[in-house]
């Protein structure tokens, strides 16, 4: 059985990957907050981004057409580029992170 089939058909495969994605959100959000008072957290942010990108790639690969066809997903990807180019300690970074969360939830709808 391929890994893809296994993850899609197992009870816990998909929820665990999705939960890693959510924990990555908590991690990255925490880093954006902490950047406001602690400088030079690049290494820690990289850990968060790696968690998010790795789990995100797996989630995409499991249902590529669903995400490819989603406008909300494309908006989310654009916002992600914005976030990665924003100064971490800024209000804009926090606002973009919040917007990404709303865009993520919107994938289920459009």
């Amino acid at each position: 059985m391929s890994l893809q089939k296994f993850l899609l058909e197992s009870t816990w495969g998909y929820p665990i990957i999705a939960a890693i994605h959510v924990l990555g959100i908590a991690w990255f959000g925490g880093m954006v907050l902490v950047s406001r008072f602690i400088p030079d957290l690049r290494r820690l942010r990289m850990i968060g981004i790696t968690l998010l990108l790795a789990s995100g790639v797996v989630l995409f690969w499991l249902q590529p057409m669903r995400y490819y066809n989603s406008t909300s997903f494309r908006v989310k990807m654009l916002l992600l580029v914005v976030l990665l180019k924003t100064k971490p300690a800024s209000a804009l970074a926090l606002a973009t992170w919040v917007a990404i969360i709303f865009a993520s939830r919107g994938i289920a709808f459009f």
Partner: protein
Amino acid sequence: MPLKNSFLFPAIQSIHLIGIGLFVGTIVLSDLRALQLVLQRYAITEIRQQLAPWNRAGLAIMLTTGPVLFASDVPRYIHNPAFLVKMALLLVALIFGRGEKQTKLAALVSIALWTCVVVGGRAIADFDIT
């Protein structure tokens, strides 16, 4: 239109997720510092002090969005095994986190508990009994 069918429901879910970021994020960050894996140059008391307002903001968000989401569709949630497990683990995690976590083992248990709460919450959508 009932809340569970309106666009407000996913909006409140998103705020719930932001609350997770703030609440669980600050807890896990503090625990990782207790395990001396991150931010070792900074005193643990200083980190906790700086994170405290964000932790409280996150908790406030969870305590409002959680009950609102639950109340929007009580039959769905009380029959959902993932939700029931999540709430049990949440209770344990909150009680466990009340005192000052003194040992590295406590920090590890805290991270494990909150990870399970997050997994349980995410699993709700996969365990709906229709």
